């Protein structure tokens, strides 16, 4: 069923009785050409592009809970392509371009809001690092603007611009095309889009084992029985190690918790996405009015999907320091997501040692913005059984071979990326 202003009016007149399911609720078939494990944004986007761009429609997405219930549904929704290293820059910019037409493509309003993203600068060293990054962005065809403090003030008038703070604001690097999107809508839009092209979205279906014949995957054991598959793509983010453990593979990944927080809804206060360079803090205002913010990882391996107090306190101290008027606003809710932290902070998308098993993971805290791009290249990789040019550097082998993609230079310490 097509969504539009007109369909809204029509339905309103008939008591909204005519709306149909956004996606079906099928029972799993015995066999699919492709099974995607993980009904987050990435898995659903992969299925959508497999069907739409590669004509592969005998596809199932298996989700252990409800679609979008993983990190897709718990992230701070920041979208940007302000990367420094070429491989990242080109991949994320491709994703950004897909975002720019996504609502129309899916016929589902994902509320992609290009209000810009601004990274504050407080020290000369940061200015230098951001100059390098900003120049790299422009050289890669990505938009970037360097602001002085005055320029920052125009974008974010309520920050602390005084000198009477530990790290006064010197300026900021902005990407005007950056912004946010409604996280849930992204999952639902892709689910609906894929469903309409024939993909089976199967919720409450946990993959518990992967059946193999030598180097070939035959299918997956699930909480709803065995399901056969020609190819299997794994896009389970924080659960990557668990799923690959089913085929005895160890990954260059640790699972860590990242927390996010939202305040009570208020009238527009924060117009752009803003990150504090002197602490770990970033904030944006959702289109519901809540200020959504986050900061650093809690810093230890966990699958608990909940965080602890020290990080909370630390994040908020950064926030109130950056923007003192936040002090009297109230936190409404605190939650966490299990991050697939890779050893160099960059993702892994491609083939694995097993022929028809493909991996999509290692997103760290940056995979929401990758959703369209990730699904797009992963679908391409699965359809052609070889990586696309855009993800050819995101291999598993890069660690062994010495080609890390380390934007922060933190090395193989996942909690430091």
């Amino acid at each position, binding site marked *: 069923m097509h969504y539009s*202003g007109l369909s809204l009016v029509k339905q309103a007149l008939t008591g909204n009785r005519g*709306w149909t399911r956004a996606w079906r609720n099928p029972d799993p078939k015995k066999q699919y050409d492709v099974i995607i494990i993980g009904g987050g944004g990435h898995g659903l986007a992969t299925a959508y592009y497999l069907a739409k761009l590669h004509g592969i429609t005998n596809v199932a997405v298996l989700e252990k809970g409800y679609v979008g219930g993983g990190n897709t549904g718990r992230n701070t929704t920041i979208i940007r392509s302000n990367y420094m290293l070429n491989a990242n820059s080109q991949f994320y910019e491709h994703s950004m371009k897909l975002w720019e037409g996504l609502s129309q493509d899916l016929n589902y309003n994902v*509320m992609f809001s290009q209000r810009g993203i601004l990274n504050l600068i407080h020290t000369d060293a940061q200015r230098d690092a951001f100059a390098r990054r900003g120049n790299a962005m422009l050289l890669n065809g990505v938009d970037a603007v360097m602001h002085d403090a005055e320029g920052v003030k125009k974008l974010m008038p309520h920050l602390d611009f005084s000198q009477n703070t530990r790290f006064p604001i010197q300026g900021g690097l902005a990407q005007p095309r950056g912004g946010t999107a409604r996280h849930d809508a992204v999952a639902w839009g892709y689910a609906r889009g894929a469903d309409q092209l024939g993909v089976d979205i199967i919720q409450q279906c946990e993959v518990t084992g992967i059946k193999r014949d030598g180097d070939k995957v035959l299918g997956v054991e699930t909480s709803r029985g065995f399901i056969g598959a020609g190819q299997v793509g794994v896009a389970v983010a924080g659960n990557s190690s668990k799923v690959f453990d089913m085929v005895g593979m160890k990954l260059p990944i640790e699972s860590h918790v990242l927390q996010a927080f939202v305040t009570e809804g208020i009238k527009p206060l924060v117009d752009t996405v803003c990150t504090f360079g002197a602490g770990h803090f970033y904030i944006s205002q959702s289109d519901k009015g809540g200020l959504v913010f986050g900061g650093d990882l809690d810093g230890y391996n966990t699958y608990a999907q909940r965080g602890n107090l020290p990080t909370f306190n630390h994040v908020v101290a950064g926030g109130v320091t950056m923007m003192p*008027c936040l002090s009297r606003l109230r936190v409404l809710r*605190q939650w966490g997501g299990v991050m697939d932290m890779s050893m160099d902070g960059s993702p892994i998308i491609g083939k694995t040692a097993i022929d028809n098993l493909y991996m999509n993971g290692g997103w760290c805290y940056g995979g929401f913005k990758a959703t369209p791009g990730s699904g797009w290249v992963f679908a391409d990789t699965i359809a052609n059984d070889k990586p696309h040019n855009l993800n050819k550097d995101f291999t598993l082998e890069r660690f062994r071979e010495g080609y890390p993609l380390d934007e922060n230079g933190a090395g193989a310490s996942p909690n430091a990326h």
Partner: protein
Amino acid sequence: MTQQFRTAAGGLIDRSRPITFQFDGKTYQGFHGDTLASALIANGQHLIARSFKYHRPRGFMTAGSEDPNAIVQLRTGSRKEPNTRATTIELFDGLEANSQNRWPSLAFDAMAINNVFSPLLSAGFYYKTFMWPVSFWTSVYEVFIRKAAGLGVAATEADPDHYEQCHEHCDLLIAGAGPAGIAAALAAAATGARVVIADEHPLIGGSLNSERLTIDGKSGVEWAAEQMEILSKMDNVRVMTRTTVFGYYDHNTMAAIEKVNDHVAIPAAGQVRQRMWTIYPKRVVIAAGATERPLTFGNNDKPGIMLASAVRTYINQYGVKPGTRAIVTTNNNDAYRTAFDLHNAGVQVLAVVDSRPNPDEHLAAQLAAISIRLITGKTVGSAEGRQHVAYVQLVSTDGHTSDPERIDCDLIASSGGWNPNVHLHSQSGAKPVYEDSIASFIPGISRQDESSVGAAKGSFHLQDCLDQGHAAGVDAAKMAGFKVKPKAKKVATAKDEGTYAIEALWVSPTPHNKSYKQFIDQQNDVKVSDVELAAQEGYDSVELLKRYTTQGMATDQGKTSNVNALAVLAGQRGDPVPEVGTTTFRPPYVPVALGVFAGHTVGNDFMPIRRTAIHDWNVKNNAVFIEAGLWLRARYYPQKVGDTLDDCYIRETNNTRGNVALVDVTTLGKIDIQGPDAPEFLNRLYINNWLKLPVGRARYGAMLREDGMAFDDGTTSHLSENHFFMTTTTANAAPVLSHMEYYHQTVWPELDVVFCSVTEQWTGIAIAGPNSRKLLEKVLDIDISNEAFPFMAVGECKMNNITGRLFRISFSGELAYELNVPADFGEQAWTELLEAGKEMNVSSYGTEALGTMRIEKGHVAGSELDGRTTVKDLGLEGMANRNKHFIGKHNSQRPGLLEEGRLQVVGFKSLESGRNLRIGAHLVDDSIKLDSVSQSQGHITTTTYSPSLGCGIALGLLKDGASRHGQQIDAVFPLDDEKVRVEICHPVFIDPKGELVRA
């Protein structure tokens, strides 16, 4: 005509202390002990807010922190606080509050037009539209959506109030000081256990304060007050009022917020507004009570419709009458009390409408005795009236809705049953379970050291609450190792209040089965039809439902609405409620101000400052500082007004290169290393050789991370047998020490070596320049001739009785020394050196000149050691001894780290006179246009104008740079549309053979 809705007497307000306050610009009076809500009701003001989406008029639904509607903008200016619950605001003199989310006024809100379009604004409508034309999204739709969103308006100035944090340890923390909590506290405290009992309210007593109950022959209020007295006097008890336990974290860590001064206009000097408590109890007793839920009927959101228990609270605790002609509508026994209390307060009760066909006979008889009409098998189908209820239409619960009975009234007291407050229990990691007998969720199996008691456990009988509280208190004390003394065995006795019984009624039929707005989540305007639509469209798990409709996502987090919503969903799915389950409970239990999480580590105190011993001198001498980690370092020293950075660092560099100057290098990490295996340890830590360094000599070393990337560099000196002294970069001082401790304790415990940081003990002063020896010879007691003290020599020395250490090392590339003196003598040593050098025009120099000289000398530093470079990239590979083992050795040999095409350190010279190079510029071939896809071959890491060479120079990382010396390339800075032609050169610009340092 003020406070015309006060009862004649009673309540816990102090009628002798009137308070004047303002709401929406109008002045009112209330009493001490009122909340803003009770005071407004006393004045007949029921309209308090407009709803989020439809801008419907809203009144007070509850009398507590669970209220979805009554949120106002409290205070003004920099103390403005949006979305504050009027039901929890203690009245103070001068209080100012305003309604929010309405225009132009609360009584007449133009946006109420949305009401008419509500069918268009069904659940998730925005996902289905606003997509065309594409350009309208940013320019029109989004602008509109953002304006419409949100409720209150935030202050834009800094908060003038202060906050702090505090820690508390105890054997037992009790969340909630109602009868159950008090009983637990008394029992545990009597054993000597350390008890903390916290309650959101200014008084302890919980529901005792709002009900007419009897304990030990006293009124509940009196009993509670007496226990408060007793508990407050005990050394082992901390009674915390105005304190909400808002979070249950790992390892039984609890977070609470104390509203220290929210009940006054402005906190007194030195006082904080709020305090955050982190509490570490051995055991937690959750005595948080239960929250009533409303019945769901047509227009159930009108002002004048309240929870039945809230009506009792307003009457009994605050002495106000929420109406004059009341209807009580219920599906359970509890709401009958409301009829009695209303009657008792002189409010006319028109009827008790009980949806159950066969209500409790005893209660029915009690009603009859006071001539209150009881209507059974019926319920309110709809409420009618404009901005307040004017009448109700009653329908039969058996579906007979065609001849609704109309009753005129101005108050509906509604009870749909009670939901135990399982929030904290659930936050602790446990899963609440559905309990049929109360038609709600109760605590499940504990996952941490906690238990729930009383109404929080689903026990609604007062004696049960007291018994359970008592038992939990005794248990907690026993578990903490305390003996239970006889006096701790006594349990208070309550007068019997009858039993609780309920027959769930989730949604009322509507009059004539017509479509009505039946609200579930009143703040987010989620209606029964929205829940149904979500289910119809496939958003049919609780979590999807929540996200699609926003049910339970408002400031009240669905405290009164979640259970109703999921029951509707269950009905729609045809599943039993337990199968549908609840959404996840998350902290905080009530919204908590950000300020309180931050405490006082904000603004200037966000992070501590590290100061060197030269700091005060630097301040006195006009130094301009720069941050290095937490340190403040002197960047340059203006000599006269108008001196620029350039003026200063060029002057300072020239004086160093041509004469002699001092720089404070205290911030370098310093590690004392001792033990027979110290050389071996260093040998494994550094890539180069350390086994044969003679005593009295220093050596430059480089270390890698285990992944083979360069980690840190610095000099280490052999002070005496088995005694070494290492310096690290400022940034890596702490990581390097931890790294060493890691390897020593976990990998090579067999090595007998100890180390500790001595960064703080020593002030480091570098004395650099051709005249440095001359200067030092004046003040030191040792022979520092080139023969006696050659390059890389190390020795102890005295300067005016200050014993220090002298190192002949050089970062600037000049003849130079580093003098370390104990830090309390740092400033003295510094000024004495300046004094002694006066005749030779010695000066100080800052980090900017230091940086200039290191660039001229091609020394790599933090900007090149960026965690992505290998020693090969840095030109230091020659140091590595691959015949021994060292950290990072193998991973540094991975093919990708050895192959051609990597970025390597080189120098650059500007070929365009007068144009300096900029850090962050990229290196591209001249054919490249600035906006084409990257052909970046590297970038500039650090730059300076070299006073010695008279041109702009830089260091940078360039693809295959080592083999490209002499070539030209463009350094582009597209952010500013700049491009400079540069020559690639060897990174050492000055004295490549190192003759100066050895002179």
